[in-house]
């Protein structure tokens, strides 16, 4: 029973961590480039809805996921246009996009589906990994998950590589830390920031799509319940390092799935206490790390070259 419990907990935590991880990796890229994306919640919610809608209509989870990514990416583009090109305050832009995302998805869902709450009913492409699945305890928790689950975790090294080993990553870091230096060295601050926020939006959309298309296969109004904002905070707590973000995301995945675990154990705790743990946890984590994480210097600051 003990081993089964550990397996179940780990399995639930890893799945629950995926949306946080995906949103957070994208947000880390955007923040590294100097953009604080408070629209992430709206982008994620859009990923949920449009992903779900496309999957429901076509019956294909792949198309659903792609639609979710596209929705997030377009909102990222909107964020970029308002905050980079028009240089409007990022907080205001972020909140506007979050409200817009919440409104549009809720409106369309109710308009299209009325009072029904259908399931997407698509193939999540579960993958069994031959050798891994036979490892005791851990194996069953890792194997037999949807394809996108594995892709998500593989994105951790991919983002680490992108941020640290590629020219684009170098540009992103320079642009967020000291845009003047990047500009002086011939790096386009605008283009780099646009690319970064589009990645941030696409990843938020992907996170939403995983949630609605792959994991739950349904949409609910406001279903992200702050997961986007938590992803944003995880990027900070993880110091914009994909590996540390992954660990932090697993910890918060554990917090998210704690309720189920305790139910299995037969512990009687009010679900509300469990549900609010991630929100409290993120504040605690931020307090503990405040001062130790140096925010990108140009975070939130629009860039305009000194010229008239």
């Amino acid at each position, binding site marked *: 029973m003990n081993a089964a419990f550990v397996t179940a907990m780990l399995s639930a935590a890893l799945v629950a961590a995926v949306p946080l991880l995906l949103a957070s990796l994208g947000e880390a890229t955007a923040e590294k480039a100097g953009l604080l994306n408070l629209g992430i919640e709206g982008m994620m919610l859009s990923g949920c809805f449009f992903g779900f809608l496309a999957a429901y209509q076509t019956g294909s989870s792949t198309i659903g996921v792609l639609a979710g990514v596209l929705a997030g990416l377009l909102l990222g583009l909107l964020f970029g246009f308002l905050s980079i090109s028009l240089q409007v305050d990022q907080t205001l832009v972020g909140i506007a996009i979050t409200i817009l995302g919440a409104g549009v998805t809720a409106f369309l869902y109710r308009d299209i589906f009325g009072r029904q709450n259908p399931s997407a009913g698509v193939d999540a492409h579960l993958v069994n990994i031959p050798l891994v699945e036979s490892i005791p305890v851990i194996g069953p928790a890792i194997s037999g998950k949807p394809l996108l689950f594995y892709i998500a975790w593989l994105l951790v090294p991919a983002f680490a590589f992108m941020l640290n080993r590629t020219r684009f990553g170098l540009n992103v870091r320079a642009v967020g830390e000291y845009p003047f230096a*990047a500009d002086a060295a011939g790096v386009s601050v605008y283009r780099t920031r646009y690319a970064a926020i589009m990645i941030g939006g696409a990843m938020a959309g992907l996170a939403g799509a995983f949630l609605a298309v792959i994991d739950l296969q349904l949409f609910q109004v406001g279903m992200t319940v702050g997961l986007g904002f938590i992803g944003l905070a995880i990027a900070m707590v993880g110091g914009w390092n994909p590996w540390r973000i992954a660990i932090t995301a697993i910890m918060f995945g554990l917090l998210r799935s704690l309720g189920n675990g305790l139910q299995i154990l037969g512990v009687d705790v009010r679900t509300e206490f469990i549900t609010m743990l991630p929100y409290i946890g993120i504040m605690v984590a931020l307090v503990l790390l405040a001062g130790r994480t140096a925010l990108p210097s140009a975070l939130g600051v629009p860039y305009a070259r000194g010229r008239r």
Partner: protein
Amino acid sequence: MNARFSTTGGMTGILPRLAPEGSGGGGASSRPPVVEMRHIRKQFGPVVANDNVNLTLREGEVHALLGENGAGKTTLMSILSGMYQPDGGEILLDGQPVRIGSPAEALSRGIGAVYQHFTLVPNMSVIENVALGAGSNVVLDMDAAERDLQAQLGEFGLNVSPRSKVSDLSIGQRQRVEIVKVLSRGTRVLLLDEPTSVLTPVEVEGLLDLIRQLKARGVAVVIVTHKLDEALAVSDRVTVLRGGRKVAELGPDQIAAGTRADAKRRVVEAMFGGGAGAGEAAVPEGGGHAAGPVLLALHEVRADGNLGAEAVRGITLELRAGEIFGIAGVDGNGQKELGEVIAGQRHVRSGSVSLDGKEITNSGVAKASALGIGYVTDERLHEGCVQSATVADNSVLKAIRRAPFSNGWWLNRKAIDAHARALIQQFDVRTPGPDVRIGLLSGGNIQKLLMARELAGNPRVLVCNKPTHGLDLKTARFVAETLRRHADAGNAVLLISSELDEIFDISDRIGVMYNGDLAAVFPRGAADAETIGQIMLAGRAGAEARA
């Protein structure tokens, strides 16, 4: 013969190779100059920063651009490096007129700049900084780049690992990294903006050697500076700017070793104006200067700067009623922080500050201001005023909790309005009225209002940082006279400035700050511009070397 460094030779594609030493330089005088700036004009609003300036840069020649703060040096260099577009005039590169639209374009044309505020990203490694913006490969091969860079760093006397973080390097090392970075982009015109202002004397020697090395490679080097000795030690040609205009140019024969003393005198005269310190100040000296009782006393005061390093290093100073104490110094030598310490705006780490014999160390701005310390900041827009608020509101920013402007709870709008009107009238602030946004006024008028705001509290001690900077002559004169009157009324004024004219005009005593320390204090009669200039540039050692 091409002095240009190859931009394609690097094995890795990240780092271009430098051309070997000796590939450039030497009497190619028949070819056109590398850069010719002709009749450059640049205006910011009403202020003319560059007015009909010519500058010619030749291969393998070191050109010093001298002038006081605000003389237009930085603007001229910003135009050449693509940061600004000139309003008039033209730039010729190898004899061909060009338009330099951006820093990136300047770099691609072989013009690289090393700014006073380095353009290195502090929390990235040396190698990442050098690779930034260079090349187009998607993936960075750090190992190969490291080998390449290691050699180059060694060549320029830098014994640091390419992997070390820039923030862990000393300022001198950072500067070299910056130079290597710029050179690795194929630079043949190198602009150095105040390169020595941040360096220790040993590092300065090293830098001058490096400049000679670059000269031998055929690079055209421009040093923007106001440090005379260093400029003369390494340059072939000197251009002096003053008030946005070119006021002198000295060629190689005029600054050869034999005639250096003469050259120096001419440059100082051109930079600071012949009149400085000659005792012809239009404002009369205070009657009983330095005779009054001590109002403000600082004892062994130490305080940190914004970046954490100690900025004020054990300053002891007494200000007496009736005197204006001028503090001269090149920007960044702790004067600003000293002013903030007195105003209560900066934490004192050790030592004491007392006013009228009563200790007020670290009592905060509100208390210091209530006790009679006024502070006119040099950062007028950044912290001096609220740009989006009205002139009237700004006029009572510091006194709002006191009568008659409020009873502590309720504002007295009538009193505020009347006060603002009075200040506007007394100080001739040009504004449509007290309820105009202060951000719409000119810098000079904002300055007048800030000055008026402090003086209205009739402070026993008034600290002014660069009170006439950027003002037109008439306004500057008015401000100076006002300060003089305030001191004559039995108060003390601490006047911080990097412009000697301003200091000489009205100070009773003149102190020179260098490297966080009060390096020397002169009674006004005993000071001359040249001595003070030397101490400003080199500390006490500068003065002793002269004596």
